[in-house]
């Protein structure tokens, strides 16, 4: 098939863009996790803040992705064309699944378990690390998996603002009406999303199953 020939002859570029894509997704998901999980822990402890913060994160999700990228560009410091702006947008988009799953996982813990832990003389930190996070881990990992898969898809749009990645093939292909280019971008991206889903799904099952007894 024509397409496979194209793939092979352009393999260096395919590899490079795939690597760029992986970096975009890896960095943005890590950012979402580093911000989102502590934020979720805070919200689980402070019910009053849950509505406003989750509401805000939700609103970000509803902004069409291309529009979000575009909105960020003219902003000073964090804006501009290129990778950093794309990363900010990707982190914002990946936040909701991580935060809301962290909150849900923590709230879903049997109150008797928490009561027993506190009554035993666990400090807040011990309660969080020895009881709450281990028990919420399965649900939190689901959120991370969802965020990653979303991130892979969204990162294709990052190419539109000059951040590189497999989206470059797709946009170039659209502009030149060249199907091979489009596929050279879309297929690896789809494969990446599937792989992330499978691998993270397996990790999730390993950590999630035992705890919810």
């Amino acid at each position, binding site marked *: 098939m024509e397409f496979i020939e194209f793939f092979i002859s352009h393999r260096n570029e395919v590899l490079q863009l795939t690597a760029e894509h992986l970096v975009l997704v890896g960095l943005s998901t890590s950012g979402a996790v580093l911000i989102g999980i502590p934020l979720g822990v805070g919200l689980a402890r402070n019910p009053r803040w849950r509505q406003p913060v989750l509401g805000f994160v939700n609103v970000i999700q509803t902004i069409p992705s291309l529009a979000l990228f575009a909105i960020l560009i003219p902003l000073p410091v964090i804006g501009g064309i290129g990778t950093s702006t794309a990363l900010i947008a990707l982190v914002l988009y990946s936040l909701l699944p991580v935060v809301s799953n962290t909150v849900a996982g923590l709230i879903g813990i049997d109150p008797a378990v928490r009561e027993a832990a506190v009554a035993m003389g666990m400090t807040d930190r011990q309660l969080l690390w020895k009881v709450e996070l281990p028990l919420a881990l399965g649900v939190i990992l689901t959120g991370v998996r969802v965020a990653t898969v979303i991130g892979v898809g969204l990162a294709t749009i990052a190419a539109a603002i000059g951040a590189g990645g497999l989206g470059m093939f797709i946009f170039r292909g659209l502009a030149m009406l060249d199907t091979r280019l489009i596929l050279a971008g879309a297929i690896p991206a789809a494969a990446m999303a599937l792989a992330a889903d499978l691998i993270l799904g397996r990790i999730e099952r390993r950590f999630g199953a035992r705890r919810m*007894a």
Partner: protein
Amino acid sequence: MAAATNAVEFRSVSFRHASGRPVLSQMSFALPVGEALALVGRSGSGKTTVLKLINRLFEPSAGEVLVEGVPTTTWDPIRLRRRIGYVIQEVGLFPHLTVARNVGLVPTLEGWEPERIHDRVRELLRMVGLAPERFADRYPHELSGGQRQRVGVARAVAADPPLVLMDEPFGALDPITRAELQQEFKDLQAQMKRTLVFVTHDIPEACLLGSRIGLVQDGRLVECLPPGEFLRSKHPEVQAVLRTLQASESLNVQR
């Protein structure tokens, strides 16, 4: 000082829920070390609240709760709770930890050496009738209700606390298992000079394990007597409680 410090003392304690609902009303009593107070009374009378005031899960709205002569509000909450064993009806075993890790939890928090914890866990499991070889590495979801309750009791006394609080610990069990556990616990108690405060709906249990029975009605302690005297009390609420006992006993006689 002439008198020894009481293990637990309530001085005119009142408690209101966050919602404003009054729960306890000027409750006062003193429990000497080594004694066992059984709290009985209708649901909602405030019995569980009494327990939670002792380990500072709640703080009194008025009055003082003293443990070992020191107000709970003065105690460092962590230190206070490590000296108090706590068993609840739902047990609250940590589902992600083995039985051994559950039981050894407070000793672990207290920094005991692993060997000492290991030995203590095995000793306790044997004491509550769960063979360590079979049960130490199991998870809570693999246990029956009765087995979980036993683990809960072992966990509560693991670090050998001087005071133990129990909230209907055997309530969810069938009568046979309940009777077994009550007797096992009584034997456990006989071995240590531990102070015990427990809530129960089971009058025979109150008589078996308690050195004193306290009747809580509408947030007040209306009667507090040793079991023998309690059963002979003329107080209307005590009579109401005892009447339910007689009802179930007559069921047995009719057979």
